């Protein structure tokens, strides 16, 4: 029997961060409901941001979806987590910088600040009774000892799933597999999130799944920052022989066609949000 790997689609969140790509709220609802209908396990619907596109589309997706987990991405900020929680998604994903480059250069903070902020965010989500996953951003360039200590801390707080994000796409297959095997020792559920800077996102995701990852992220057409994310069609097409993915590459192809029609100026109806 094939091992189950859950597919997480992040077209509506990380995919839309590809410069120049804009989804209207109605586009997001159409795409999300299509992805839900073909068996995608989790759909990252967006970033809570009332000032940009409103929040009604999230409740509409939540109301109409059949089976997928709908998640919202939040910064490592208790207020953001609280705002996300008020939208009542199935899951909140908390993006947590973990490499020294991101912690010290980007945020100007330190490891202690990360630990404290994360605990505050976890507490807020718990108060709203909404499950979370923690996205370890730039995990591929992070100190593994820090990752492991942070994961142990999270587990004590009840977090069950972390996302290993290869934020700048620098993993090679060998290191990608090693990283998963190292983190797997903590007993946490692992989701992997690959970027395609060297054209290795699909291969790395495959090796990480083979090494014990439980969930794989990707986007339709592989859209995303820079050279994009793991291309869902390519991953599903290659991985289906090894894993039970609950979604077929043929259906993903249909999703790509829907996305293309939207990006080519398909009919919009934004009056509802």
């Amino acid at each position: 029997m094939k091992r189950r790997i859950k597919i997480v689609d992040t077209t509506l969140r990380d995919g839309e961060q590809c410069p120049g790509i804009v989804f209207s709220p109605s586009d997001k609802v159409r795409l999300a409901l299509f992805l839900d209908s073909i068996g995608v396990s989790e759909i990252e619907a967006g970033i809570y941001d009332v000032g940009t596109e409103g929040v009604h589309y999230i409740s509409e997706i939540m109301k109409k979806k059949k089976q997928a987990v709908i998640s919202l991405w939040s910064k490592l900020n208790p207020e953001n987590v609280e705002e996300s929680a008020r939208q009542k998604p199935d899951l909140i994903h908390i993006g947590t910088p973990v490499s020294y480059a991101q912690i010290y250069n980007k945020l100007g903070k330190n490891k202690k600040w990360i630990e404290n902020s994360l605990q505050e965010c976890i507490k807020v989500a718990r108060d709203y009774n909404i499950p979370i996953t923690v996205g370890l951003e730039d995990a591929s360039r992070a100190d593994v000892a820090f990752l492991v200590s942070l994961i142990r801390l999270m587990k004590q707080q009840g977090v069950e799933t972390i996302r290993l994000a290869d934020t700048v796409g620098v993993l090679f297959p060998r290191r990608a597999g090693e990283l998963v095997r190292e983190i797997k020792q903590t007993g946490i559920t692992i989701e992997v999130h690959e970027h395609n800077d060297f054209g290795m996102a699909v291969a790395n995701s495959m090796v990480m799944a083979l090494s014990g990852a439980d969930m794989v992220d990707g986007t339709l057409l592989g859209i995303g920052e820079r050279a994009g994310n793991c291309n869902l069609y390519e991953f599903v097409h290659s991985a289906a022989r090894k894993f039970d993915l609950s979604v077929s590459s043929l259906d993903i192809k249909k999703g790509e066609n829907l996305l293309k029609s939207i990006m080519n100026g398909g009919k919009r109806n934004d009056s509802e949000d």
Partner: protein
Amino acid sequence: MIKIIDATLTMLEEYPLKKELISEFARTLESLCVWGAVITPRVYQLMQGDLPQGITWYMELPNPTESGRYPGIHFFLSSFCDGTGKYIRNIQVNDVSELRGLEGARSDNNLRLTGLDDLLIYESRDIYERGMKLLIQASPILYPENSCYCASAIAADYLQNHHNGTVMTTFTGIGNKAATEQVILAMRVVERYKPNNSFEKLADLRSLFETMTNTQIPGHTPVIGRKIFYIESGLHVDGVLKKPSNYESFPPELVGASRKVILGKHSGGTSIRYKLKQYHMEDCYPVEHLLEMVKRLSIKKGGEVTDEEFLTMMSECDKYEKANQNS
């Protein structure tokens, strides 16, 4: 020493190639530290045997007895040769388990293995480890195919495991192969391959390839896409402007590209301040108001806000300010 051999010219049989473009393509490959280039008899005839120096020339030649017709070619690739001297024997490997056939093969045999699409999709890690060990022992030219979308990763993985390894690739991965540019840059960034060499000529290679094939390479193609250093989201713009390596695995200049801040739905205040600074207008406009206008327009038009549109917004702000002062 790692060697990368480019076989792009063997994939362009159906295109109307010109001698000058082929020469330029080969010279550019050499400047990118590509060890060799593979051609076909047709390309050789187009070149009239006048092959640029500085690069090792290989030829796909099904019938090795014809090799005497092609002076200047260093090695011939064929499935019907013994793999000695200047002949390299090609073997198609469709499954990682077929690597067992390499047991006993010595590294002084000239071999090229084509295929191995599923090397990274292994049944068990042991099978992969054994396969890689056999590959290192036989040290063939590895020419991975891309039916599992893993060819560039397979080539890079082989070179990372085998520092005297040789891979064969094609530009953009044309012909369902590993992509030359992806393997070069991955080795450069992760393995510090040729650390003092500039790879900015990749942009020239892209243009040459587009001319030869009459195609346009998509903007977000890894390494060579024209838009891979375009940034829009507030979080990323802020991070990159603080320190580019926060969100870039290599600097754009390394591949002859440049960074550009795009305005749109996902922009943040940092992007507006950055653009205003470009126009020497940092403190002259309300950032939040402009940001709101940018987001609104981006959502309305379903795409990025151009610099011209941003300038129009700035002038609208001016008019609004004046009207308020007069009222």
